[in-house]
């Protein structure tokens, strides 16, 4: 329900760990803290996927987390954007030959923005979020 453009919501993100090594988690939290501070633009992590516009997925999707990732993805209201943070979510990264992977992430859910790096720098994550925001605005424009 978009009244005018100035009433638009800020971008809220939900973070999902699909079996990551914690490196990307730490960099995502570091991105939110005062040195980089995207919260001044209203960008923050929320506790429920039902409040989120953006799904940040880290990790290579281990077998046990695949159904949970799908459930979280389905709970996010449209329009939504999925951002894959880190090399292992993009291609499996250093875990490419593991027997316990159902990933990479785009085998499980559609991904809109890829942020490479192991882990990506906070500047890289912010750049990815800006790209996600642009895509989200385009998707909102397409809604009836």
């Amino acid at each position: 329900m978009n009244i005018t453009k100035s009433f638009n919501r800020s971008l809220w993100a939900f973070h999902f760990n699909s079996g990551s090594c914690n490196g990307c988690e730490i960099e995502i939290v570091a991105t939110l803290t005062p040195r980089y501070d995207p919260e001044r633009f209203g960008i923050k992590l929320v506790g429920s996927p039902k409040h989120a516009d953006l799904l940040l997925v880290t990790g290579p999707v281990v077998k046990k987390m695949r159904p949970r990732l799908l459930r979280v993805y389905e709970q996010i209201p449209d329009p939504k954007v999925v951002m894959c943070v880190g090399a292992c979510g993009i291609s499996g990264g250093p875990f490419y030959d593991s027997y316990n992977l159902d990933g990479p992430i785009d085998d499980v859910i559609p991904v809109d923005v890829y942020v490479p790096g192991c882990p990506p720098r906070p500047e890289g994550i912010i750049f990815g979020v800006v790209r996600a925001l642009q895509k989200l605005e385009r998707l909102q424009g397409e809604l009836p």
Partner: protein
Amino acid sequence: MSDDTKKAVPYTVPIGPTHPALKEPVMFTFQMEGERILKADFAPGQAHRAIEWMGMRRNPVQIVHLTDRICGICGVSHTLSFARAVEQVMEIEVPERADYIRAIIAEFERIQSHILWAGVAAHELGYDTLLHLSWRVREFAMDVLELLTGNRVNYGIIQVGGVRRDITPDQHETIHNCLDYYSDLKAKLLQVFLEDKTIQMRCRDCGVLTHEEALKLCTVGPTARASGVKMDVRVDYPYAAYGDLEISPVLPDAYLGETRGDVYDRIVVRLLEVDQSVDLIRQCLDLIPAGDITWEAKIPKILSAFKKAHGEAIGRHEAPRGEVFHYVRMDGKEHPTTWKVKASSYSNLMSWIPMLEGEQIADIPIVVASIDPCLSCTDRVAIVRDGRRGIMTKEELTRLSVEKTRRLMR
């Protein structure tokens, strides 16, 4: 609501595996009576990536980059203990300068990890201002780590036989500035964390782990030290440069005069260890000798040395969360035939059960966070063949160990 529907007491509260209070996937089941936890149980295993299995198909030069990624926070700890195990199998003497550089990076990692943990603990108490303040001061350690290793996380600095980057003289000033910053900050950090009324009320006598339980459950690291167990691998079993340094385990009674083994004591231990690490890095910078930084710079030569290595060894390191233990066996092939990782959280997770039972539901996040759990290090897979279970008790393990010693003595 109708009154005749009887509530089943105790009722069950499941938390996880994906929950905003948990940074990593783990499944908790609590039996509750009102707000009080009667029984706690947890099921790890949601972040299993089969790292040991993959490692046994790669050579150690490749594995050091895989061990960096066992855990994104203690990147250097796993690599250091793995490299030490392989070096012992190959009977390599690591240059002294490399040992000092390893110790410096490991201590910087401890500084950033403990401040990170302090921020997470504040967040779990609902004190987000302190989360942001502590993560702001943490960035200075990250800057130095980036200067020294080229990366903020997953440093990739340790190679089998040494380190991959030297510390140049012009970097010393930046390191000293960073250390002075943390020395000046010590009083402030202790004040905001330990004299705050809210933190005292929430953390004092909450999530208690007694000295006996800490010993019985084999806890390690700051969790054990906060319960008064005097252990630290850097002191008990010196390695790298630690044998040359002045160091003793940090215990909470040195600061408070008593040990209660609660969440508050764990905050005390970790904050004091930040200061200890600053002191250790200063000692390292004073003592660091000149010389080579690696035993062999040419990768093909290291690889051919793997093919001559026979035997087994263990490598231990005091990571920010406690002892990390790597067992490696090499049988004259490029890749290890056996590689076993025991991360520090593996020993600490079981202490959740006595800590959580009897506490209130609102204390779950801080008690769970208080041991600084790292599930990506810990998750393993258990294979059940033909429905048979094989459980080794402590007595059986001791018996096997004694038998092996006798066999070797013969």
